């Protein structure tokens, strides 16, 4: 691997300096002059017709400027949704989940808006509700959606989801509440099942999760003069721009979406959330309107898809997989949001990075009268892996093979295809797993009520490769980098600065990265699927090369020599006879005054190294050792071992941070976290009863390893990080608990009560309760 000056170093992230002083501005801190504040009035029913909304009293309340319902939005396109535009800004005629926005109160202050919201009266005519996927799929189940909302708003969606052998059906408005279907099949599964030495079948339930990004969803919108300016917590400002332009019938260029620092995203801030609400508030009042949700409202805005998965696998006596069959049902809530893609990914990821000669996967995303589900870190992979990996561990036990050997027997080798026709795997999974195994074994307790578990996953990551970047070299040789990729804590601002400093040969302190402003920056399709270092990295690298090429042409003109006579140096060029000109000298001399700049542009599309989908595979290889308290069922994590197989670690400390953070979120879903519906509403829409990992839950030993084999398509062989360590944690913990207790769990989280039940041979859930 080539030597680098800045890339690959654990440089201090400059955004952290701003953040520790309290000076960093987040969306929630942005309050323009004259700003009004909005409060959402929400449905108190899971499924009901709206028969009347009384707003008069609220309108008369002190400080209230406007009260909006769907009727006030006539003339606008009143829905949003990048795949299925089924999501009402304010409920039209009926509500489909408890917590759905029905009215918006806009007032002079936060308190006045809250007071006004109390005065809005909503009358309902209740409809029968379907609160679970099973209820939604039952014959004769009440339907959530009667309308056909039309085709996908995101053209690259089908391209991203599609796999040869995969069939997709967008089934909006079906009698059985199926929002989307994806099937994937190759080989002859039935024949393989008939010939197998062992057939292992199990079912799992993956819990309904909430990402709990600590900054709740919020936005501030200013509408006027045929244009709209929104500052929001959006991961994908350009996607939100598209939804907003459609709502108001505005040209894309007249909609500006800006994203300052975000207090965590983890996928949960992908796509449009509260922006249309703030925007219609401003559209109606002519003043800036800010809307900040609380945590309960945020939970009712977006959660992750729960899943019920049945898997059946056929094995040869030596543990070789002969066939796998999955049936996936996602509980996707009342609106589609990104669940169709979550489903497509669950289908692609459930069977794991293994040689599977015969495969059949049937997936359905189901509408229920619950809060809408969408992206959350790793989406589809954690759900699918819980089924697939637990199945493999159960097979190992049945066949008398250990958990390591059955994986090594079946893992794809570097370059091998997981999905036919797609990019072969750009990772060495057997080597990664060997590292995890060695670390775990070194410190294993080998005592009663302890158990070790592994997990391996591979995600078709990177999303659709459309990226642009702009690099502007200044007269003093410093550089401004523009990207539409959002800094949400993952450290992209620092990584892109490192990369630019490396490529231009300038000090990192002279690079400024400007991100996520659709009116003053570069286009980026999304910030998700771990794409930034790889895809935006390529765009920035190309923008630097473009800027350098322009500088060379200008230098040639200034020096009166052919461009071929110009040599590129660090932050400078050299002409014939050793004439060295700094970038700034070239700019100043070419423009003929002490001013000017050079603009380099870089683009990435499905071409060249990124022609083949996915742009890269994000692998997850983890191991855990747990200890179980035999009296209480409390699980403690003795060891947490992860491998970040990232090709090239642009900033190794940042990579470790991403992996430990991802693994910790995985542990949350494995041990603590679950949203629970009781009737129409959630029992625990808050951080008291929705318990996330805390400091005392830290594993006793943490080993976050990084391997760099330069096998990614990104700069210097990099590929994405940040989701991989989450995806296989659930099954790893479940298998470890199984080995500690002697019984196989089938659902997460493994709360003390559930583990105690396992140990005492009781059903995992108290159905009698």
């Amino acid at each position, binding site marked *: 691997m080539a030597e680098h000056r800045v890339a690959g170093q654990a440089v201090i992230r400059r955004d952290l300096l701003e953040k520790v002083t309290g000076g960093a501005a987040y969306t929630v801190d942005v309050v323009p002059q004259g700003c009004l504040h909005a409060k959402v009035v929400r449905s108190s029913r899971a499924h009901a017709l709206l028969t009347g909304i009384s707003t008069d009293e609220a309108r008369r309340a002190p400080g209230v400027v406007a009260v909006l319902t769907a009727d006030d939005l006539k003339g606008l396109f009143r829905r949003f949704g990048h795949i299925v535009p089924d999501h009402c800004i304010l409920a039209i005629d009926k509500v489909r989940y408890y917590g759905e926005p029905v009215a918006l109160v806009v007032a002079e202050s936060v308190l006045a808006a809250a007071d006004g919201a109390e005065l809005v009266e909503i009358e309902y005519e209740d409809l029968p509700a379907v609160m679970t996927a099973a209820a939604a799929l039952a014959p004769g189940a009440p339907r959530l959606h009667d309308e056909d909302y039309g085709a996908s708003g995101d053209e690259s969606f089908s391209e991203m989801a599609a796999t040869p052998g995969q069939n997709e059906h967008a089934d909006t408005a079906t009698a059985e509440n199926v929002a989307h279907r994806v099937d994937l099949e190759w080989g002859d599964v039935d024949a393989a099942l008939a010939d197998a030495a062992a057939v292992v079948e199990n079912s799992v339930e993956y819990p309904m999760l909430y990402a709990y*990004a600590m900054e709740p969803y919020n936005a501030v919108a200013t509408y006027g003069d045929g244009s709209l300016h929104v500052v929001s917590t959006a991961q994908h400002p350009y996607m939100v721009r598209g939804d907003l332009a459609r709502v108001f019938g505005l040209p894309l260029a007249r909609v500006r979406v800006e994203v300052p620092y975000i207090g*965590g995203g983890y996928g949960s801030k992908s796509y449009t959330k509260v922006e249309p609400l703030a925007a219609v508030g401003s559209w109606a009042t002519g003043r800036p309107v800010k809307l900040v949700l609380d945590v309960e409202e945020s939970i009712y805005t977006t959660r992750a898809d729960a899943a019920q998965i049945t898997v059946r696998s056929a094995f040869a006596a030596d543990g070789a997989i002969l066939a796998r069959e999955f049936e996936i049902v996602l509980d996707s809530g009342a609106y589609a949001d990104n669940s169709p893609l979550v489903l497509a990914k669950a289908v692609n990821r459930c069977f794991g990075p293994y040689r599977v000669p015969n495969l059949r996967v049937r997936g359905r995303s189901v509408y229920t009268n619950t809060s809408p589900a969408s992206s959350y870190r790793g989406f589809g992979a954690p759900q699918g892996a819980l089924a697939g990996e637990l199945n493999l561990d159960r097979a190992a036990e049945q066949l008398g093979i250990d958990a390591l050997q059955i994986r090594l027997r079946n893992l794809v080798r570097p370059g091998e295809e997981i999905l036919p026709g797609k990019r072969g795997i750009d990772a060495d999974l057997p080597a990664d797993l060997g590292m995890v195994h060695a670390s775990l074994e070194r410190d294993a307790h080998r005592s009663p009520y302890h158990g070790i578990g592994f997990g391996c996953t591979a995600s078709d990551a990177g999303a659709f490769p459309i990226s642009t970047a702009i690099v502007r070299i200044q007269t003093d040789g410093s550089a401004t980098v523009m990207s539409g990729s959002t800094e949400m*804590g993952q450290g992209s601002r620092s990584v892109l600065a490192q990369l630019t400093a490396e490529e231009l040969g300038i000090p990192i302190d002279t690079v400024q990265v400007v991100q996520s402003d659709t009116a003053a920056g570069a286009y980026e399709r999304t910030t998700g699927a771990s794409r930034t270092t790889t895809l935006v990295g390529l765009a920035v690298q190309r923008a630097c090369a473009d800027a350098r090429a322009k500088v060379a042409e200008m230098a040639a003109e200034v020096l009166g020599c052919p461009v071929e006579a110009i040599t590129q140096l660090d932050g400078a060029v050299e002409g014939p006879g050793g004439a060295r000109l700094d970038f700034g000298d070239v700019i100043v001399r070419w423009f003929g005054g002490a001013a000017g700049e050079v603009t380099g542009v870089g683009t990435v599309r499905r071409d060249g190294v990124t022609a083949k989908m996915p742009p890269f595979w994000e692998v997850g290889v983890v191991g855990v050792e747990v200890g179980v308290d035999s009296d209480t069922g409390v699980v403690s994590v003795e060891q947490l071992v992860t491998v970040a197989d990232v090709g090239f670690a642009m900033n190794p400390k940042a990579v470790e941070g991403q992996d430990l953070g991802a693994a910790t979120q995985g542990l949350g879903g494995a041990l603590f976290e679950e949203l629970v519906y009781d009737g129409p509403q959630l029992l625990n829409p808050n951080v008291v009863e929705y318990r996330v990992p805390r400091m005392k839950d830290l594993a006793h030993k943490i080993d976050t390893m990084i391997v760099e084999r330069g096998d990614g398509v990104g700069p210097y062989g990099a590929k994405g990080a940040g989701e991989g360590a989450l995806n296989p944690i659930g099954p790893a913990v479940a298998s470890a608990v199984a080995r500690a207790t002697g019984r196989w769990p089938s659902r997460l989280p493994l709360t003390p009560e559930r583990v105690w039940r396992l140990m005492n041979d009781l059903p995992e859930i108290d159905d009698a309760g």
Partner: protein
Amino acid sequence: MTAEARVTVTADVNGVAVSEAVETRLTLAQFLRERLGLTGTKLSCEMQVCGVCSVLVDGEPVSACTYLAADVDGRRVETVEGLARGGALDPLQQSFVENFALQCGFCTPGFLMMATALLRRNPDPTEDDVKEYLDGNICRCTGYAPIVEAVLDAARRTKAADHG
């Protein structure tokens, strides 16, 4: 509805004397963020369980989300904005940056204020002391290990500086 009742709050906020008439229901967090423009203090759970809004009142950590502004009358309030002196980060801030003890940074002001309170009462904490004291602060990005290390590191630096 008649005009809302107000009380006058006079307090020392980060060494600056402030006096404001506030609604009786105004929280300390709203007072700091909306009236004083001290937006470093963030809000998340608003139920006193996530620790994001932790500030110090007369040296004791409180959750600004549920603490009434009226109750700081005559008291001393410290927020994250008061940690750095003369443009120089304090040892905890410096240590958080160097140990990558934050990513999105939204929880960080709360962690810094709690850790400040810890190190004042226990300048030489053990790893378990840190975990015990900061268990009420939630971070969703880092997985906590770098935060524990940052606090221990800051304690070591402060000790070294005091003895040096």
